[in-house]
């Protein structure tokens, strides 16, 4: 599928920008909801409004992604136990080993993908 969008689709798509779409998860229900909300909070908090010197960088700066990931990881560590790992980005592939029932992989904001897992 290409990136061409009809007008209606574009409007709908933009409406979905703040809609977190869980791609894969094997967490228990409450844990998942909490983690999702945390990710949304973190991404929104650190969503970048700064101007960036090089124009090639995507709108979401790397610095803010890192801060968001840091916030998520530290909160998860406190809440659910040690050794959480968080990856936020727009284009990456991964293969991870995670503890069972401790993985959440979601899309957010139309461009971001967040992967959170626990492995001590």
């Amino acid at each position, binding site marked *: *599928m290409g*990136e061409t969008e009809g007008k209606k*689709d574009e409007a*709908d*798509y933009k409406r*979905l920008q703040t*809609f*977190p*779409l*869980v*791609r*894969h998860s094997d967490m228990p*229900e409450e844990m*998942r*909801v909490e983690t*999702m909300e945390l990710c949304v909070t973190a991404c929104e908090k650190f969503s970048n409004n700064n101007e960036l010197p090089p124009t090639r960088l995507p709108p979401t700066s790397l610095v803010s992604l890192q801060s968001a990931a840091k916030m998520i990881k530290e909160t998860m560590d406190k809440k659910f136990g040690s050794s959480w790992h968080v990856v936020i*980005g*727009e*284009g*990456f*592939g*991964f*293969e*991870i*080993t*995670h*503890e*069972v029932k401790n*993985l959440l*992989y979601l*899309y957010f904001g*139309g*461009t*971001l*993908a967040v*992967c959170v*897992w626990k*492995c*001590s």
Partner: protein
Amino acid sequence: MPHKQPPPRKQSINMGRGTRKRDEDSGTEVGEGTDEWAQSKATVKPPDQLDLTDAELKEEFTRILTANNPHAPQNIVRYSFKEGTYKLIGFVDQLAVHFTQVGNLIPKDSDEGRRQHYRDELAAGSQESAKLVISETEILEEEEEPKEVEAGSQTDVPIVQASQKVAEEELMTPKQPKERKLTNKFNFSERASQTFNNPLRDRECQMEPPPRTNFSATANQWEIYDAYMEELEKQEKTKEKEKTKTPVAKKMGKMATRKMTSLESQSDDITKVTQAAKIVERMVNQNTYDDVAQDFKYYEDAADEYRDQEGTLLPLWKFQNDKAKRLAVTALFWNPKYNDLFAVGHGSYDFMKQSRGMLLLYSMKNPSFPEYIFSSESGIMCLDMHVDHPYLVVVGHYDGNVAIYNLKKPQSQPSFRSSAKSGKHTDPVWQVRWQKDDMDHNLNFFSVSSDGRIVSWTLVKSELVHTDIIKLKVEGSTTEDLEGMQIHTVACGTAFDFHREIDYLFLVGTEEGKIYKCSKSYSSQFLDTYDAHNMAVDAVSWNPYHTKVFMSCSSDWTVKIWDHTINSPPFPTAGPRCSSMTSIQLWVTWPGHRTRPLCSQQSPPTGRPTCLTCPSTSMRPSATRPWWPERRTSSPTCSSTPSTPSSLWVMTEGTSPASSSHPTCERCRRRRRARKYRRGQPWRSQNWTNC
């Protein structure tokens, strides 16, 4: 290794023994005069000692002493996080600690050591200085004397200097620590004690690590985009569904879609559980009623061989529902497609007491609870299921209405209903029957009622449109009223049946005992009239194999077989034997493979369903065989299974449970229709079936 003798302590056992060996090794030098000692020291062979030969005695065994700790484990396994498995540790620590004591020696050169040394020196210095001072002063005096001799010393001067030094010494003493108290055993005693130190033990434990799995995915812009598009489509679909719902529900649906998708999975769980629960319920029921199911298929009473002209009925199941209590069963019908599903119509035959009605559909797979429950305001008198659309059930009510229920839709109300405006009957509808779809592919059914009308109902654009097919006029009763219009008495129709092959041809039975042969195209005239019975005709039924023949049964306790081309008294049939009077209900069926008419009757006061057969291939009744059930049922409404062999379904009035019995004789299939009551008069119905 030299053979070791047992220690001397065993000697007490073997004092009686005479043999004593003395070994050079173990023998000790014993003083003379102590024979007892010698004896006590002599070695004695215990009774269970091995007797070895000399060669074996001289055999040498090598023992290797190692420094390994015998208590150390030999196979320690540790979980290696790097490799993700348990691994054997090659080297096990053999150190065994036997004794530990915490000591208080510190090295001289360390900080603490030096500090202590300094402190000790100070303490020691203060004591010795007192002694040394005196000697020092002497030395000093000696040293100063020669000095002061130069200055023209006097004897006083050294004394003065000495006294000065003494004064200095005295001055010095307060700076130093006090002298230690002399400890002697008269004023000082030491006491010490040591509490028991609990021995220390090392304990180790390693838990299994939490289970892990791998997961891999790619996060690309196009993947994200695709996922969002999918989500959009889903939301649109749910929106469309919600458009059909009420606005309130629509709002709720929107809210739900706006919420996170985690909620979607919850609704799936509920539906999954209902399906599974249904299956489990059926399983439990089948297990409970397993013997009944076996009887249903295979019961055969050997005693029937010896019972002349009589058989047995074995009651099998009882279907009942709390909601249908106190309602009589008025109609039974088997689903043409699903052989285990049958419909039960509940109503009341009592003219005075009319209450609500119910339509229940049971499955034989679950005898404890009906599959579908519908309730209606008026009692249900008859029902029929469409052959092509087995989910459509048409019912006729006591108040003259007809209604169609759609089993596919989970509504409790009928999909379509007639009303006073749309031409409902004015009297109870006694029979309804689906017809073939008409030219426009609309669903179509007929109904017959006591108001003398046979009406064809068509489902046009979700509306029931009625067409009067024929009005049952009593012949010869036309009179002229005041205005010159012809009024005729209307007969009350009670039963009808349609010919299998000739589409337009059908029979109608009336309360007056006449049977009319009618055509769908002629609305005013009958093709033929048969004076069938003295009392009301309960049922008429065409023979499916001999298409000219039909059967009628009536409340006058007769079953008659007719040829429709001959308008004369029919083939003689025997009046069935019955044990009691008033109301008899006859169900007539044609068992297929022998084309022999079979009828069953039931007399209500005694409530016994009886099955009669005319075992003649030439359609001339030779004998009738009544079937007496083993148990009395309270009151009658009978029906029979169309597809399963030889089961008779007996429904009882009042409590409206349904019990099924299995007539065993001859294993013919019979079908009996439900008996209908009308104002205390028994109605009969008949049906042809094939085995």
